[in-house]
């Protein structure tokens, strides 16, 4: 039986100290569950119990500042970073300028540096630099190839791609050096469980594909319902494969690095948030690769609503990957002891 508040309590318990959980949170949630159970099958009474119980929890979290204690403060910091990233995405929609667009790529640098630094990063400078450089180069190459090959019939100069590719590589190198300089520490940890990680990536890719299918079918239901349904299975398989390869090459190192570097934050929610923030960012790079033509820009970023709709699968897949890659804090603490 799934009692009310079980998930929320488990979530909060990961980020608050044991004493607060035992003396304040558990009795509050116990009251919520007890009242709900006492209501039995009386639906109105059950709803009243739920509303009163959750209102007490909200009052506890916000009124008494429980949210601002230690670990929760870091979690909120990550949420704020995600909000800044989202604001930048919306801003990009209104400012059709490549220089502004480059800021989106550096958002990754800022987010990674701040999060890794604040969270006591455990990787050496060389390792951080090489990992970031490798991941960034793969991102840039994948995006360029992805755009040149399927869209080369469009009136775009390949020279423009080459010039932008070089400048992108320069940005990647600079960004990697900045991240490494800010976030690196002399010690490093090791934890290879590659098979499990790859399986998690496949699950995240499937989540992406599922969201993509739902989004496309719903989005094009009025215009081309028949064709959408016909091509969806093959297209979903394609995007799953593409996204899995993309995630393994690019995001997996980032997420694993974040997990290693965030020993106290290596819980499911923070990494899910980091994944949800990081995954949509390559969307922003697509218009940057086509500086001479306005159509991709207008195709991908016509309005904040469309952009959010487009980035939805990436957000979900990133969150799923982060969630799956995270370890259980209590287990790791138990293993350490």
């Amino acid at each position, binding site marked *: *039986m799934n009692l009310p508040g079980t998930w929320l309590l488990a979530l909060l318990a990961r980020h608050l100290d044991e004493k607060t959980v035992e*003396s304040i949170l*558990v*009795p509050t949630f*116990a*009251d919520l569950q*007890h009242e709900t159970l006492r209501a039995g099958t009386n639906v109105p009474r059950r709803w009243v119990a739920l509303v009163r119980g959750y209102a007490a929890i909200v*009052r*506890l979290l916000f009124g008494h500042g429980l949210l601002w204690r230690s670990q929760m403060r870091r979690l909120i910091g990550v949420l704020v970073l995600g909000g800044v990233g989202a604001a930048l995405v919306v801003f990009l929609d209104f400012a059709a300028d490549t220089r502004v667009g480059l800021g989106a790529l550096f958002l990754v640098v800022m987010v990674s540096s701040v999060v890794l630094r604040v969270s006591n990063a455990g990787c050496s400078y060389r390792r951080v630099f090489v990992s970031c450089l490798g991941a960034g180069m793969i991102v840039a190459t994948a995006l360029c190839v992805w755009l040149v090959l399927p869209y080369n019939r469009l009136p775009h100069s390949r020279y423009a791609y080459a010039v932008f590719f070089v400048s992108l590589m320069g940005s990647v190198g600079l960004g990697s050096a900045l991240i490494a300089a800010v976030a690196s520490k002399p010690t490093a940890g090791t934890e290879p469980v590659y098979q499990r990680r790859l399986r998690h990536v496949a699950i995240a890719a499937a989540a992406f594909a599922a969201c993509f299918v739902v989004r496309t079918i719903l989005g094009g239901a009025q215009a081309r319902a028949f064709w959408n349904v016909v091509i969806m299975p093959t297209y979903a398989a394609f995007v799953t494969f593409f996204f899995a390869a993309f995630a393994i090459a690019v995001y997996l190192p980032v997420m694993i690095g974040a997990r290693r570097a965030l020993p106290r934050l290596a819980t499911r929610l923070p990494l899910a948030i980091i994944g949800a923030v990081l995954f949509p960012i390559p969307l922003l790079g697509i218009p940057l690769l086509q500086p001479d033509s306005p159509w991709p820009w207008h195709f991908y970023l016509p309005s904040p609503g469309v952009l959010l709709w487009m980035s939805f699968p990436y957000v979900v897949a990133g969150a799923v990957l982060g969630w799956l890659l995270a370890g259980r804090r209590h287990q790791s603490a138990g293993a350490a002891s």
Partner: protein
Amino acid sequence: MTAESVPTLPDKERLILELLVSGGTMFGLQLVEASRGRLKRGTVYVTLGRMEEKGYVESEQEPRTPGAIGLPRRLYRPTSLGERALRAWSTLARELAWEGRP
């Protein structure tokens, strides 16, 4: 005894002690209901936790019956220090009220 070490008894803590002394062992929610709106759900446990640190109350998990579901609630009861603090505070309040008479 310095001013910092003198035990204090704010209104909510005094109310909780009064309820516990008169009613015996109680759950947090029973305290809220008995206070007639003066104590709030959820936040009552913040006050109770603080009182437990001061040594005014002690708590234990409710005994679990077979087949019970849901999280166990906590039962609170006053300690002897809590009862003495309440008595001293009541005496002080009476004395002050007496001296304050015209």
